[in-house]
């Protein structure tokens, strides 16, 4: 290729690229900052639900507007879930007074209610245990492995989805501190 042709071609490519980049926000504007559609994915409003608490009450996600919420999907046969939950309990004890809430949703349709309840009671957990009897909420949240943890900010927007053992006590603590804007 000739020198002059290379220079002309390079300048043309550069200018087109800069123009494409500059006009992108106009031609391809992002959807509104917070989408209206709900999805179990960071940036989207969390799918709403109304579930029975194991002691008979019922709880709706919309009741918790204004509070950061951790939704924790688990089953009593899942050893990783059971290893994770004591950590959740201690973070819960530390931050519940400032508004942090944990909803431990038992995927009851792939578990048995008595074994779930007996495990939960034996550990003296204080966060509420929710029963997903027909698995609709588990499905809505596209849970593909247990445990799956979905963290919501106080506006009910998903900020983080952790699949598997990633939700250690330290990690959850850092996330909640950020959501509650605690900088000690």
């Amino acid at each position: 290729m000739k020198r002059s042709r290379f220079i002309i071609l390079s300048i043309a490519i550069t200018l087109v690229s800069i123009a494409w980049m500059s006009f992108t926000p106009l031609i391809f504007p992002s959807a509104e900052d917070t989408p209206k559609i709900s999805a179990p994915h960071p940036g989207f409003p969390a799918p709403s639900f109304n579930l029975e608490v194991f002691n008979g009450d019922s709880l709706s996600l919309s009741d918790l507007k204004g509070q950061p919420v951790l939704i924790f999907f688990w089953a009593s046969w899942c050893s990783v879930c059971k290893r994770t939950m004591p950590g959740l309990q201690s973070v819960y004890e530390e931050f519940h007074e400032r508004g942090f809430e944990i909803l431990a949703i038992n995927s009851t349709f792939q578990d048995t209610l008595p074994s779930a309840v007996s495990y939960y009671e034996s550990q003296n957990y204080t966060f509420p245990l929710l029963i997903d009897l027909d698995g609709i909420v588990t499905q809505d949240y596209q849970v593909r492995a247990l445990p799956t943890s979905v963290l919501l900010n106080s506006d009910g927007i998903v900020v983080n989805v952790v699949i598997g053992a990633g939700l250690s006590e330290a990690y959850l603590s850092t996330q909640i501190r950020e959501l509650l804007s605690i900088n000690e």
Partner: protein
Amino acid sequence: MFPIIEIGPLAIQAAGFILLISFWLSTWLTGKFSSALGTNGDVIENSLLLGLLAGILGARVGFMLQNFEVFYSNPISLFSLTPSMLNPAFGVLVGVLVAFILSQKNHLPLWATLDTLSPLLLVFFIGFQIANLANGEVYGLPTQAPWSINLWGASRHPVQIYTLLLVFILLIWFIVKTKTLKSTGFMRNGLLFCFTLSGLSLITIFARSFVDKKILVAGVDLLQLVGVITLISCLFIIYKKLFQPLHEAPVHISMGSNQSADHLINALAVLKSEFSIIRTSRIYVTQDVKKDPPSSEFFNQVVEISTTLPYSQLRKKLKSIEQQFGRVPGNKIVVPLDLDIITYHQEVFEYHGSHIPDPNLIKYRYIAEPIAEMDPGFRHPANGKSIGAILQKIPDHSMLNIWNKVKNGTKE
């Protein structure tokens, strides 16, 4: 969406698995490409692996520094084997730094090494796209287009599919240009890397427009901005490497004759009249190590010249000097004068079947020993190995003696 792979307590999402596979595949391809180019594959692979490990550690330490108070009360969690609690930016910084320090320590030449890493760049870029497709990250804008995919509650642009289709074109160019990972396809190092990186930048600039959540900085998308800056830098480097007149740079020429040492003395005089000479070795007497067909002893000498002459013209000029001394092409029994270019301007390339640096440099003593004598600080332009290390590994055990005019010569 791909399923999740569970290994013990680790639930690796398909995305992580794809990234692991692409890391393995890309290091394997880099190793293959490296041995074709003659660059230092072992050191490059080790630097990559150590860079990756340092990167992961760095990402964890970075996260710890960010959230110091949590780790202060719970230091054990620093070592928890989970993929969360990572600060990717810090990790990349530490990883690249460690890989860079290792490459410097081993004297890896910058541009030849970057050329070697070009297939890694391509494969990892592809792996990254497939991983994002698998876990639904970096989703596209909503669209009515018939090829849209349903994701996160809307019909969306399949951004990664656009990207992959374009990368496919780049991949075909890459395979054709390198003759399926046989050579860089260019006479100067760094061109293959810069062209590959320009292609990836262009693809990123194009495809990012269709992404829903953009990272806006001063009114433009951050990744598009990085793409444009990378593109401009690459085009500038390509321009300099393709069109700037060559600087004076060293060339090592191996001279040989099985007729007379005088041919070497006279040839050196011819070279002196044409080029500026940097160094010359003494003349050595060697048994012909190739022995095909068997012939008498050889006189060898290496001379380092400095020239701005392009490789192809230099080669022509040396051939014509050979012919002045009565060399008949094809005659391997009577070799009045043989002039071979061993290194050219510190570059690594292939030209009409000849590889530069000459592969014989690491095979035969009659080239390596004279170089070691005249320039003990010499390093191989492709792999950065010192001449001392090359001589230690050399498979050739023929005897070289310094030619002495009085003892060996026929003249009195």
